[in-house]
């Protein structure tokens, strides 16, 4: 045990003197969380600027414009049609609603009155939200005017116990990302030691190679736990993200994830001769994984043909399990599937890394 302990202690001493390593391990994930946290923090009070052109002074026009004002996502400004259309074209407004002067008289004469909506179809998301909201208002107005009884009422029941905010989605993703980084870069010191003949120097002592590897992995695991604690605390205190699941399971996952990515890291650099050549290999694995695993945004946003790739990446499963445990998000896959896939990656990486890792 003595050589193992000495190596772990030596690794920590070096780590805490290495400013770059400190930054990427602790500050970088927090920076990520804070930036994304601020960007997304406005998400819960989305509002759309819409213009209203009310050319009808009758009760119908007034009622319609009042219901419009009461829709929480609309910020309504009034003006003439020409003014409003200019603002729409400039992008200051998302839609312009025109209530023509003859609405009341048209209805009274038993015909269908038209309410005109101008919108920019390029703004896909906002247009859809606005159009469906307006549709609902129009339906309601129809019901009131024709005095039909309400027979069907929609009752909204969220299956999520907690209302998931974007930051809730993001924090487990950042945790998964940090473990990805920590793990993939975990084998880099070994490449450096091989390059600078430190491994050779160790080879001249009774130290076993397995002890070197175990000490490096243990050091990464401790680092991963510290990192996770920091991320979870900052998420809690700064963004009010609470861990709703089991802490034991959460840290079990931190360890499983770290082991998986450390092994993958060893495999990735098993043949690299220098740290300079190892870096791009690691990045080649890291970046696609980062963006294709749904750690920052739901994978529903990705086209269907990407799904097989997404479903092959271990980070997808780690992110998904973290979300399940931390914020009880809806699972992409059942927990057992996630754990099995991660364990599978772990075993395959270890076997291949042992097979291919170059010591000299």
């Amino acid at each position, binding site marked *: 045990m003595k050589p193992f302990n*000495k190596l772990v202690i*030596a690794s920590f*001493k070096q780590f805490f003197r290495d400013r770059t390593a400190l930054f990427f391990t602790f500050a970088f994930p927090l920076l990520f969380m804070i930036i994304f946290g601020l960007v997304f923090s406005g998400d819960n009070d989305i509002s759309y600027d819409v213009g209203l052109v009310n050319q009808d002074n009758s009760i119908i026009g007034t009622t319609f414009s009042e219901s419009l004002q009461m829709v929480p996502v609309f910020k309504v400004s009034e003006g003439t049609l020409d003014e409003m259309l200019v603002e729409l074209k400039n992008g200051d407004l998302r839609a312009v609603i025109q209530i023509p002067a003859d609405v009341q008289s048209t209805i009274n004469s038993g015909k269908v009155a038209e309410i005109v909506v101008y919108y920019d179809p390029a703004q896909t998301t906002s247009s859809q939200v606005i159009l469906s909201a307006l549709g609902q208002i129009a339906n309601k107005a129809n019901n009131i005017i024709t005095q039909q009884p309400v027979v069907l009422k929609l009752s909204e029941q969220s299956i999520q116990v907690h209302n998931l905010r974007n930051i809730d989605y993001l924090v487990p993703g950042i945790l998964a990302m940090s473990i990805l980084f920590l793990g993939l870069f975990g084998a880099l010191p070994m490449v450096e030691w091989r390059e600078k003949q430190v491994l050779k120097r160790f080879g*001249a002592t009774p130290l076993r190679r397995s002890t070197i590897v175990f000490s490096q992995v243990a050091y990464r695991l401790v680092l991963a736990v510290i990192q996770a604690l920091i991320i979870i605390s900052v998420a809690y205190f700064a963004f009010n993200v609470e861990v709703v699941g089991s802490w034991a399971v959460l840290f079990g996952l931190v360890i499983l994830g770290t082991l998986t990515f450390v092994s993958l890291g060893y495999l990735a650099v098993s043949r690299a001769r220098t740290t300079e050549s190892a870096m791009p290999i690691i990045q080649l694995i890291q970046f696609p994984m980062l963006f294709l695993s749904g750690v920052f945004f739901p994978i529903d946003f990705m086209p269907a043909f990407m799904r097989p790739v997404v479903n092959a990446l271990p980070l997808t499963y780690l992110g998904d399990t973290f979300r399940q445990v931390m914020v009880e998000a809806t699972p992409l896959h059942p927990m057992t599937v996630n754990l099995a896939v991660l364990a599978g990656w772990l075993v395959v990486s270890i076997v291949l890394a042992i097979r291919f890792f170059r010591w000299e």
Partner: protein
Amino acid sequence: MSIPVIEVKNLVKTYGPITAVNNISFSIMQSEVFGMLGPNGAGKTTTVEILEGLRSADSGQVSILGMNVAKASDKIKQKIGIQLQAPSLLPLLKVDEILDTFAGLYQRSLPIDQVLSIVSLEESRHVLVKNLSGGQQQRLSVAMALVNDPELVFLDEPTTGLDPQARRGLWSAIENMKTQGKTVFITTHYMEEAERLCDRVAIIDYGKIIAMGTPGELIKNNFEEKAIQFELEYQAPEAFWMSLPGAIRAATEGNDVVLYSNNIPVTMSAVLRLAEEKNLTGQLRDLRVREATLEDVFLKITGRRIRE
């Protein structure tokens, strides 16, 4: 009593078409300082690394401290200390931390203070390795070879790149080890170093041992003559110099001339007369008479000088 600390028989190591070590044999007794000399690429490092158990031999037997190096590598490593040619250190550890880390890899170790004092690094004990000078790093790598209080120490070119003062410091450290009864195997291409430190030397060239013995023996066996050495801006073939009275052999390199002579006064006056005739007395520099050295032995046997 007299089991050799190192015993090598018919050692061969090839890399593809190159025979790095070509059938060498030697043995080293306890508390001997044994030097292996030769130019770069002669096979010194390969030999040392086989003895250390870092490489395997193609054929031949190597026993270290009475144990077969191929079979008892772990046991041997507990009892030997190794300094590698390039100091391979952990830059973000302090001197005492790296020594403590390495000491922790052995069953037996010396107190760090003692190791530091052997190589005179006490004052740098809290300095980060990356902030040490080249000489200090070199001394640290020697210190790392001593943390387990080894019976046998391997030093591979320990003074390469050191300034004269640091070199002398290391020499006295090595003399210290000898008085403590340690056996030292040292490779070097500094002949002066070998003459000063080594009880016995083996000269190796193209993977073969071409001469072995005490420095004194080697010099005496090869030279009865002494050497006249000088610098003169006068280019002449070696045959010309050998034709001077008393001169037996000559070696030139640029303006440097070494004349080996059995009759120093006769040869010396011939040199002075030549300079006078050619009107070059002002250009005659660095004229001295010296005993032959290991450098001369190497030159005589191989026809080449050892170069860094």
